[in-house]
């Protein structure tokens, strides 16, 4: 199991993506897909990042839903800022202390924050756990820090526990 399929979920994902791209379930392409999926799993195992232990699937779904909502809302906010009269008034950097240390959890947090219009991950200090974030509407620093820590970091800490 572990030898042949070191990362079963990743391999399954690759296989599904392959079938989706080929738009067929015919045995030929499916067999090639299985080979690609196996190779993908082995390559990842060679990189030796360790397998993340994910917990609380319910919380994962809730976080995903929350992120979708937040991205929709910040789409509107950023569109309003761009089209508004004071487009360049309040952009700035903030420093946020993070308790999250797991590299894969940090990658997820970075993807969430950067995919959201209005906030961009700029730099992370791995030693002290400081994150440098650039935000487009920096009216209240405290609100942004609370948002990142309470809304995203806390569930990620529980999921990647």
């Amino acid at each position, binding site marked *: 199991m572990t030898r042949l399929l070191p990362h079963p979920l990743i391999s399954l994902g690759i296989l599904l993506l392959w079938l*989706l791209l080929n738009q067929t379930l015919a045995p030929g392409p499916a067999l090639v897909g299985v080979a690609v999926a196996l190779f993908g799993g082995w390559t990842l195992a060679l990189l030796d990042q360790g397998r993340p232990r994910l917990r609380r699937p319910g919380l994962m779904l809730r976080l995903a839903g929350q992120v979708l909502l937040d991205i929709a809302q910040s789409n509107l906010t950023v569109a309003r800022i761009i089209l508004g009269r004071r487009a360049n008034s309040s952009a700035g950097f903030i420093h946020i202390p993070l308790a999250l240390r797991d590299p894969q959890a940090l990658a997820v947090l970075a993807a969430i924050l950067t995919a959201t219009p209005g906030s961009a991950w700029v730099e992370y200090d791995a030693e002290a756990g400081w994150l440098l974030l650039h935000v487009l509407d920096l009216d209240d620093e405290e609100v942004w820090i609370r948002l990142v820590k309470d809304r995203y970091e806390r569930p990620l800490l529980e999921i990647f526990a």
Partner: protein
Amino acid sequence: MTPEAAALPWIVVVPVCLLLLIGAGLTLVGAFGLLRLNSFYARVHAPTLGTSYGMGCILLASMLFFSALGTRLVIHEIAIGAFVILTTPVTLMLVARAAMHRDRLEGQRGVPQAARPD
């Protein structure tokens, strides 16, 4: 418009048009933001309109339209979405870090010297 597309019922056509307009509108606003915003770091935020819900709406419209046209489920747009979601943050971060590195070397003001506060 092809005759097949013209024959689609309004219950498909209306959402497809709305989704296309919203998606294209968001992407346009994002592109406009590149012109309008004045600092490099602020401009990084603008294209994410197009890569988040701009892309999402257009892909959803495409799935609806071609599923209705072919009367079978067309969902390989999900793969496009997955690739864009996975690659955009990496690109944006790379670009922002490169700009930060250059600004620090040149001693620009208003740029933090480290992720740790001074």
